[in-house]
């Protein structure tokens, strides 16, 4: 098997999560491929470095004694009660109330979790992009270069604003994915703050009504709206005012 086909499994191998047959085959490949062997060695060294660095904090003896005492005391209190009916009279209504509360929590939580999932994913993409050595695939401040670059790579097109006279500058763009849907990620800069603009087809995203408006997601400021069948997300660590201003420029261009 060629190196490219193994590359996606090197983390699994380093983490001991490969199936035995694959593990044996990869081990055989590593014996004959210096590049992959070095790659695995680097991953293992990083694992060891994090393992050593992560074991850092030790609890105080006082906390240990306190918790051990609480656990011992509570366990002792939980001796079976002779008054079985008394127990039921108290707990049956409590269980009914708990089930009702759980059902309510589940409904509200599911709606909220869907929205949070989308914003968490976008925050992930934003952070991972900025941490990357090559954050953008097309590097240009010229919208007439960036926009055509996406042709043939994503199933839609969009308009970008003219920026001269504003504080914003376009750094570049890359293709990205949300909910298995390809879209565009554009990186803008304002006073050293990077802002990601994500554009996806509206129909491909869940719960469109819940996504609109300004949100604070994982401490990032965001703004989102729908225009011409496209869902726009603007996300970054810039101020809410900057996020609003860039959103307005994009809306006006669309």
């Amino acid at each position: 098997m060629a190196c490219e086909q193994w590359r996606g499994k090197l983390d699994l191998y380093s983490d001991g999560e490969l199936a035995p047959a694959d593990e044996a085959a990869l081990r055989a490949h590593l014996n004959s491929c210096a590049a992959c062997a070095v790659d695995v060695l680097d991953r293992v060294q990083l694992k060891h470095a994090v393992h050593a660095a992560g074991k850092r904090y030790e609890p105080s003896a006082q906390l240990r004694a306190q918790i051990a005492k609480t656990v011992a005391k509570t366990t002792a209190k939980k001796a079976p009660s002779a008054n079985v009916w008394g127990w039921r009279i108290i707990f049956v209504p409590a269980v009914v109330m708990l089930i009702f509360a759980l059902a309510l929590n589940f409904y509200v939580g599911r709606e909220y979790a869907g929205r949070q999932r989308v914003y968490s994913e976008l925050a992930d993409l934003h952070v991972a992009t900025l941490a990357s050595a090559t954050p953008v695939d097309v590097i240009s401040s010229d919208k007439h270069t960036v926009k055509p670059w996406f042709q043939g790579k994503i199933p839609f097109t969009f308009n970008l604003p003219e920026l001269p006279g504003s504080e914003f500058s376009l750094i570049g763009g890359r293709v990205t994915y949300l909910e298995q849907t390809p879209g565009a990620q554009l990186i803008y800069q304002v006073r050293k703050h990077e802002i990601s603009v994500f554009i996806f087809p509206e129909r491909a995203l869940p719960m469109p009504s819940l996504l609109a408006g300004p949100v604070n997601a994982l401490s990032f400021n965001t703004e989102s709206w729908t225009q011409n069948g496209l869902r726009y997300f603007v996300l970054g660590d810039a101020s809410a005012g900057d996020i609003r201003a860039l959103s307005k420029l994009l809306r006006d261009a669309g």
Partner: protein
Amino acid sequence: MDGWLVYPMRVSEDPSASSFEDLAMPLFDQLYNFARWLTQDTAEAEDLVQETYAKALRGFGSFRQGTNFRAWMYRILRNSFLSSRAGLKIVVPLDEEENENILPAASTTPESILIGEANREMVRHALAELPIHFREILLLCEVEDMSYQEISATLGIPAGTVMSRLSRARKALRGLLQQNLEGGRHGV
């Protein structure tokens, strides 16, 4: 609120055979270390561990056979942590790019010079700088030696997402280490 946070889960051991004390106290040091990394504060970490044990004690009666006790404890701790901070939610992504695992082999990657004790502080600093959802998954995998399945149960995410998020977390950590190394070289 406890009903939302404490999920009745199964334990692999028979509860009648193993007491809560026998199962939970050996996890004390690990749980504290994890709590301290999450909170970045000693007093908050101590409160969090106490809250975790209190909730686990209350929920222990609902255990049945079949589930990992350690993952259950970590999940209670993590949920308690999340509920203690308004606006901080690590509920997460579903789709992950398939190629996230593919990272170029390079002879001068940061990790190749991070083996020694002298550089341990640099890794700790980079870990503390990572976004919390990256930091926690790295700690569970590398420090707690959890399997993908255990991490999946602890964080409440599919195993596929565990893989891709781990890959992203490592990529972000490498980026920070590289930055710090370059900053160190320039500073000399």
